[in-house]
């Protein structure tokens, strides 16, 4: 292997990247775009959800209850309607997420005693929103119920202490429960999958498609030199993007960074080797650029997006799928990212993630080399 020849291949690749302004754009703009999209776009902290109210009673008591809904920051009483179909229609067309229906005998039944039911019709297409809504509505109604009970007892000369349990929650590692803090570190894995596998597999598949790979092979350059020379520029770009992403995460989104920068770089380098090898391997086995892009999407981007724990927590997946995630490098990288950003886990305690990542890097690099040699023969 000669360093001069390797550098020559790398230089050719760099010139090619620089000449293609759009590829260069993806390298520079994409990390920023993805960061902003996910940092701002993903938020499950619901507030001000539109609620329609149908008060069939119209009494002082029913208004008191509705005022409590109005006072809560989680609900926004969008409209007061006076028919049941108006509520169902609002749920159907999405103008309301919840409809509260107070029965016509609400106040009279309260006077008579015994339980009274208030209906909450919830649009549960989005189960998560529905769950949160029901929880908050439950809290409002219970608070109201407890108060009228105490009033009622007091009127009858019984003084009873209220019973209250306050939940004092401390959320560790992400104290303000900012969605961006837990999303943004994982975006690094996405960005690198795109650069490493997507862009790389396309570039090299193009050479195969156009036949320029054969030309390159007929020169004295060895297979190893071609592979390393072609991948080296993308490796540098990937690491550059990691730094860009980390800077945006820390200085723009104010995601805490509690671990070591060196570990971030080292684990990113490992993951970069993994995705580059995968990208190279895909380009070797795929005949066309279209096939390469679709395979790259399926084996790198999708797992990084869905199965890495980036968005959806792995321990809530079916057990079979949890096992599958174990053979996905992205899972280990995302885990490292979250730990060094949010938890500040010392590097020595990251072996459970770093060792598998290193094994993947070695195995996939060998696999790509073998496939390349085989294709050349």
């Amino acid at each position, binding site marked *: 292997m000669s360093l001069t020849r390797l550098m020559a291949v790398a230089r050719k690749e760099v010139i090619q990247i620089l000449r293609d302004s759009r590829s260069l754009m993806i390298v520079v703009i994409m990390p920023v*775009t993805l960061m902003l999209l996910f940092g701002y776009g993903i938020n499950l902290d619901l507030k001000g959800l539109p609620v329609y109210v149908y008060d069939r009673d119209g009494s002082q008591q029913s208004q008191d*209850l509705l005022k409590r809904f109005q006072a809560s920051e989680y609900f926004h009483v969008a409209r007061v309607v006076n028919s049941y179909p108006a509520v169902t229609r609002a749920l159907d*067309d999405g103008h309301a997420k919840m409809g509260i229906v107070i029965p016509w005998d609400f106040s009279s039944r309260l006077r008579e005693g015994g339980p009274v039911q208030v209906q909450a019709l919830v649009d549960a297409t989005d189960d998560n929103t529905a769950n949160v809504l029901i*929880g908050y509505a439950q*809290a409002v109604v219970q608070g109201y*119920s407890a108060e*009228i009970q105490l009033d009622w007892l007091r009127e009858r000369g019984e003084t009873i202490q209220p019973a209250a349990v306050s939940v004092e929650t401390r959320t560790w590692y992400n104290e303000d429960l900012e*969605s961006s803090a837990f999303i943004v570190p994982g975006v690094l894995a996405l960005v690198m999958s795109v650069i490493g596998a997507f862009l790389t597999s396309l570039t090299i598949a193009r050479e195969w498609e156009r036949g320029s790979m054969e030309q390159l092979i007929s020169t004295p350059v060895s297979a190893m030199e071609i592979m390393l020379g072609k991948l080296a520029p993308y490796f540098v770009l990937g690491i550059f993007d990691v730094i860009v992403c980390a800077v945006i995460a820390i200085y723009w989104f104010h995601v805490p960074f509690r671990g070591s920068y060196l570990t971030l770089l080292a684990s990113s380098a490992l993951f970069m080797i993994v995705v580059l090898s995968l990208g190279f391997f895909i380009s070797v086995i795929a005949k066309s650029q279209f096939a390469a892009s679709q395979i790259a999407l399926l084996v790198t981007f999708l797992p990084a997006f869905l199965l890495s724990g980036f968005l959806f927590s792995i321990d809530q997946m079916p057990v079979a799928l949890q096992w599958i995630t174990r053979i996905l490098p992205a899972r280990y990288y995302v885990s490292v990212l979250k730990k060094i950003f949010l938890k500040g886990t010392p590097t020595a305690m990251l072996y459970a993630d770093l060792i598998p990542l290193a094994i993947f890097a070695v195995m996939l690099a060998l696999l790509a080399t073998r496939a390349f040699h085989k294709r050349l023969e």
Partner: protein
Amino acid sequence: MFGRLKQMLIKEFIQTLRDKRTRVILIVPPIVQMLIFGYAATFDIHHVSTVVLDLDHSQESRGLISRFTSSPYFDVQRQLTDSRQIRDLIDRGQATVGLEIDAGFAQKLRKGETAPLQVIVDATNSNTALIASSYISQIALGFARDYQQDRIYRIAPQLMEAIPSVELEQRPWYNPGLSSRWFFVPGVIGSLTLVLVITLTAFAVVREREIGTLEQIMVTPIRPAEFILGKTLPFFLIGLFDVSLIAAVGTLWFQIPFRGHILVLLTGSVLFLLCMLGVGLLISTVSSTQQQAMVTAFFFIMPAISFSGFGFPISTMPQWMQYLSYLIPLRYFLIVLRGTYLKGVGMEILWPQMAAMAVMAVSLLTIAILRFHKALD
């Protein structure tokens, strides 16, 4: 005209379906992605690993803990004796929730003071943390309510019959089991179709340009309109085939109910496919290589999926993102998909979405065709 168009169509179908790999790509990845999405994409929480530290050792504290033990959302794994253990277990990721009841809990409850339940949540995944916190609050609330009822019963059992109370009768419509899968699966139909049709269209046209066959075709008597129609019609049909395929997996495998009218869904799908063809063609007119096409498509696809409300509610996004989302055809198609699948609504509700997609389809295709003419000149 029809003769030439027919020849063109035959050529396109042969070209697209000749390659075994492409045939596989049109069928296997959509199904695999549907399955992964269906299983992995969930915000439901079940059996969240929980540890408990009870320093009060009272009947009350045990009563509260037993509510967590019997809840399907929490999996109480260990009873601890020292608050340092909580920190340690959460740090090592062996527990997600730590509950701590300090000495004096029961005493405070009996005296009518607010009794605190300390909760520590690992918020590296803020979704899980948010949802778990909401369930914890509901459990604590329920405990306080029942405790209060018990107390009233002990002090004045004769009043229990007559005491008024308000209950919330919750009716989660459209998705009574509150399942994430019902929410995600219809959405996956839209987003997978988007990725497939855009990349397929953009690639096919650019490929002809890249390898120079576009010029060859243009010297034949074929007119540009016939060429565009001949190019897009196959992808339209393939798109329709894939929509049906993915929808079939969703309905048959995941048993998502389909409550609307199939014609409404078909109308929506046709309009959406036309929009996506327009986007794909437009991308092809601004790209000279397949790699550029892929990069550009990627830049469109990522925001299109994130802004559409596919996984995360649009209402929690920043205002500027909410405005941008109106420009995304997928936003409207998702409402049609969820409307027909879960809500079972028809044109009387969905016409604004259909109209929006129709307007977008017409404008996108017009711009694409005009640009295409220019690109050929």
